[in-house]
Every structure is written in structure tokens, then in C-alpha cells.
């Protein structure tokens, strides 16, 4: 970029003017976009900075896995399917399983928080995806420009609000409001159809699964909406006009042309948001009830997630003189990474299946 600008204005003497370069130096620099002697540096600098996050991630996971390995040997498969969370007797005798020391009576089953993680982020996604795509559509296609501009800033600001503030607001304001005025209404108006029992029953006091899902939705809407807005803005006008000229309504043009045109991008943005929801810690810890061994029987009940558990249990884990509880938390962290990995792989499979029909890159029209 810089080199192109230089070349265009003739700012610096052309480096390529050396006799060894045969082609027109100006053209050469425009073609490659960098000066000949910058090429080398750029290549290595680029490679290192591109690899850095990946290396950091691998190192982190390796350290965690190393730390967690003894816990894996003791907890076994029970860790993934069990529904209890017993740190054992911290001041009692030390027992050994497979050569690993741990307090007597430990039994760690993380299924409730794994399920809680999937449920709360699933609910967040169900709420956030339609709202985000709808908002992005309104911003690019429907609203007058000045209103759209204001809303765009509002969304960006929302994306930057620290999650502890959203969590606090969720715990103090949103939760009680929902529990008093909204949840009872939903619970009493849901039809008596088998699949809907999930929405019935006691509505609690505002801490729990649905409140967590809503708070998470609030946090990921800006992520999905702003990315999707950028994608929509890039959809060329010609296919959209084609739809209008066929007599499609704006709604049909959006649903059948604009959204599918950028489908794989929207899936990517969704995964980004979902990853944030799965990994979100403090806000969920504040509004979920932060339970360890409880799967909520309905959508209103208190529960916990992997990430919230990690932050709420770390303090007490250090009390365990054998270090076993800390190792168990490390194992939980590895599970979190695996969940994120699986979500990403699933998204990739979806993109591969549907991407087939979306517009190829570079179809500008």
C-alpha cells in the first residue's frame, strides 16, 4: 500500500531502478505492492505475527492438559457424565488412585455445568441471531441513513461495555424484572404441549438459565449484528434488483437473496458470538446462580456453566492440599476448549454444506 502510494506520487526514488531489475520499476512495485527489499522482511514478520496467536493457544492448551492429566486419570469418564461435585474431605486423609494423590471421597461430575454451558449459549443464540440479523438488515436496507448511523454507534458502544457491568445490571435489574413480570406470564400462558414443559413450572427469582441466556444474548448481539451489517452492505445491488424486478417483496429479497448471499459469513459471525457466549464468565457467574451439580428442570431455574465454575471455584480449590481440585478445574478448562473446538468444526461443516450455493468470492456484479 505504502509503496503504491510512493510510486504514484514519485515520493521516493524507485528502488527497483537497479540494473538487475528488468521490468518497469513502477509497474513492478504496483504489481507486488511492496518494494523489492521490503519483501523479505514483510514475509518473515508477517509469518511470525500470523503464527503467534496459534502458538499461544497451543501452548496454553498444552499447559492446561499437562496440569489436568492426573485429574483425568482419577475422574475418568465420570467427569463427563456424572452429576455430582464433591471435593471430598479437605482435612482428612489423602488417598491415591492410579498413583495420583487426592482427598478421600472426591467425586467430580461436570455434566451439569457442561449442559448449562450448552443450554445458556444455545438460548443466547436463539435470541441473538434473529435480532442481530434483523437489526443488520434494518440498518443497511430499511432505516434512513442518519438513524442507521446513530444505531451503528450504539451497537459498537454496547460491544465495548465490560461484561461485569452487564452482569451487575442483569443481577440487580433485569433478573428481578423478568422474574416478577415476564416469566410468570410466559409460564402460565404456554400451552400444555409435551415439548413446552421446559417453559413451565416455578419461575424462580431472576437468577437462572433464561436470564443467563438473555444477558449472553445482549453481549453477543453487537458482535453478530455489526459483522452481519458489514456483510449486507457488501451484497451487490444487481441480484437484489433482480428479485425486486420479479415482484418479490423486500422481505423476500432479504430472506431469499441478501441473507443467503452472505450465509457463510453470517455463520462465521455466529460462531464468533457463540464462542463468546460459551466462554463468558463473570456476567454468567452473576446471573446464573453459579450452581455446580444442578441441571435446571426448566428454563427459569438456577444453574452453572463451565466458565462460571472456573472463576467461582478457584479460590476454594487452592484449599485442597493435594492440589487435586485445581487439577480438576484445569480438566474442566480443557473441556471448555474442546466444546469451543467442536462448535467451530460443526460451523465449518455447515458452511461447507450450504456454502456450495452461496455466491463465490469475487462475484461483484
Amino acid at each position: 500500500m505504502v509503496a503504491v502510494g510512493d510510486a504514484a506520487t514519485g515520493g521516493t526514488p524507485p528502488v527497483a531502478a537497479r540494473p538487475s531489475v528488468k521490468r518497469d520499476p513502477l509497474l513492478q512495485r504496483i504489481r507486488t505492492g511492496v518494494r523489492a527489499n521490503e519483501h523479505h522482511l514483510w514475509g518473515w514478520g508477517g509469518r511470525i505475527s500470523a503464527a503467534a496467536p496459534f502458538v499461544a493457544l497451543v501452548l496454553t492448551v498444552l499447559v492446561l492438559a499437562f496440569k489436568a492429566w492426573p485429574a483425568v486419570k482419577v475422574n475418568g469418564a465420570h467427569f463427563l457424565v456424572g452429576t455430582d461435585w464433591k471435593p471430598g474431605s479437605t482435612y482428612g486423609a489423602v488417598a491415591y488412585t492410579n498413583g495420583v494423590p487426592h482427598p478421600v471421597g472426591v467425586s467430580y461430575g461436570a455434566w451439569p455445568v457442561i449442559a448449562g454451558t450448552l443450554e445458556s449459549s444455545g438460548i443466547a443464540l436463539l435470541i441473538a441471531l434473529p435480532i442481530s440479523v434483523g437489526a443488520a438488515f434494518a440498518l443497511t436496507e430499511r432505516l434512513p441513513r442518519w438513524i442507521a448511523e446513530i444505531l451503528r454507534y450504539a451497537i459498537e458502544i454496547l460491544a465495548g461495555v465490560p461484561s461485569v457491568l452487564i452482569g451487575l445490571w442483569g443481577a440487580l435489574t433485569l433478573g428481578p424484572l423478568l422474574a416478577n413480570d415476564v416469566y410468570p406470564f410466559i409460564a402460565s400462558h404456554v400451552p400444555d404441549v409435551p415439548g413446552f414443559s421446559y417453559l413451565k413450572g416455578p419461575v424462580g427469582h431472576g437468577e437462572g438459565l433464561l436470564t443467563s441466556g438473555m444477558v449472553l444474548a445482549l453481549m453477543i448481539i453487537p458482535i453478530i449484528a455489526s459483522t452481519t451489517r458489514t456483510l449486507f452492505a457488501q451484497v451487490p445491488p444487481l441480484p437484489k434488483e433482480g428479485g425486486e424486478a420479479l415482484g418479490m417483496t423486500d422481505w423476500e429479497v432479504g430472506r431469499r437473496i441478501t441473507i443467503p448471499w452472505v450465509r457463510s459469513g453470517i455463520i462465521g459471525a455466529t460462531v464468533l458470538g457463540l464462542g463468546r457466549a460459551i466462554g463468558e464468565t463473570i456476567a454468567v457467574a452473576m446471573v446464573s446462580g453459579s450452581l455446580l451439580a444442578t441441571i435446571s428442570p426448566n428454563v427459569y431455574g438456577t444453574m452453572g456453566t463451565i466458565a462460571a465454575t472456573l472463576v467461582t471455584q478457584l479460590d476454594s480449590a487452592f484449599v485442597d492440599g493435594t492440589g487435586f481440585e485445581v487439577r480438576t478445574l484445569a480438566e474442566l478448562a480443557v473441556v471448555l476448549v474442546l466444546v469451543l473446538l467442536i462448535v467451530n468444526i460443526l460451523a465449518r461443516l455447515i458452511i461447507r454444506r450450504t456454502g456450495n450455493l452461496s455466491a463465490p468470492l469475487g462475484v461483484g456484479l
Partner: protein
Amino acid sequence: MSEGDQRRAGEQVRTSPAENHGEREIDHVLEALDPDRERPHDVVLSKDLSLSFGDNRILSGVNIEFRRGTITALIGPTGCGKSTFLRTLNRMNDKVSGFRYEGDVTLEGASIWGPDQNLLHLRRRVGMVFQRPNPFPMSIGDNVVAGVKAHQIAKGKQLDVVAEERLRQVGLWDHVKDRLNDSPFRLSGGQQQLLCLARALAVGPEVLLLDEPTSALDPISTELVETLLRKLTPALTLIIVTHNLGQARRTSDNTMFLYGGKLVEHGPTEELFERPRDPSTEHYVTGRMG
């Protein structure tokens, strides 16, 4: 009578535009059989139409009628307002900011801007094909029936029938019958344009507007499209914008020449090209302008 019959009748009547002058017995017979004979001959009528964007007047006082079942070529130098005029006819300009019109356009006697006119229905009756192919991001088969679905003309199995019929009509069926579920973006540019034509035809329009439909195509695809267009009359009324004067001569019955913000001249194609009345028309069609 199905459209297919009309098309065949059309081929008998119109071997080539040049032979249209001869009066033949069969013409009278066919005319008597024509289901459209009770309807007005002029499908689309532009009355004193003036178009502007903001303060920029693009065209003024355009008076012209488009006869049922004919092909009209719309020619003129670049920027003279051909696309603007064409896009006005199915109200694609209405949402363009600053667009204003004076005068009126009627479709079968009713103003296209009239209070009883349903915009979506109008666009079903007046279809459009664009300068560059614009397939939708859905399978080839779904592309053909996208409009059919939107207007709920057919559903279920019928959709497959419509898709096949229209793809056959544009001569694409044999190429794509084994990959109806594939992406349209892997078709060649010419095939994509034929697909868009099939899509426009699928909703059964009365009038088809084509804005330089072959300008992105190679000569062979262009010939394919031109042949197809001739087969579409007299069931349809076509208005085609083109920079290719040869194409205008080959395909159209009538030609209109826009220049300097006005409809300078219009008439039977042969006459306009051979004996232009206006000097600027003569300049343009003899290649000394534009």
C-alpha cells in the same frame, strides 16, 4: 390456447421482420383466432413522459406505444436515458432517491402508478432482464422458480414442471438437467443469462424489458439469446435496450432512438435504419456518432 401454440403461430407469421410487409391469407386467419384480438393493440403506452433525477431532466415528452407481440429496440448514445426509461416501465426507478416523473405510462390502459395498481403484480406482468447475469444464491432449479414461489403461482411437484419447461424454452435444459441442485455461479456467463431469462419467463410476464441483455456475452451466446427472443413473440411484448445496432436490426420490429433528452424518432426498424427522418438518427445509425 397455451403459450406454446401462440409461439408456433408467431413463427409462421414472422419468418423475418423484412417479410412482414406481404399480406397473406394465413395472417387474417391467425388474427381471427388470436385470443388477444379483443384487447388493446398497445400494451404499453408512454404519454408525455418526462423523467428526472433531482433537477437533472433526463428525458422529456416521450410519447410512444408498444404494440402487443412486437419487439422494440431502444437505441441511443450512452447516457441518453435508455436504462432510465426502461426501468421506469416496471417502476424500478420509484425507490431511487430524487427520481421524478411527469406524464404517464399505461399498461393495458391502466396507469402503472394508479392507485389500483399492485406493484408486485405489475412486476410479475412486466418482467426484466439485466445487463449482466444476476443469479440468486440458490440452486439452479430454485433460481428458475424463485418468482413462481414468490407469487405462489405453483407449488410442490408443479414447480419441477415449470422449471423444466422454462429451461427447455431457453435451451438450457440439456446442459443443466443433471445439476439442478448445483450452484448457478458455476455456469458460464451466457448460461447464467439464459437462466435469468428462464427465471423472468417463469412468472408468465406479458412484457419483458431487457437492458443490454447480451452485452456481457460472446457472439455465440448472443445469437442464442437473439434467436430465443424472436421465439418469444408474439406471446410476449419485448423492449430491448442495445448498443449493438446489428442486434437491433436483426431482432426488432420497431426501433426508437433516444438522443438529447428526447425521443428523436421511432418507427419500423427497417425504415428507421434505411430511411431515417432525423439527421441525428442518420448520424447514429450510420456509425458517425455514439
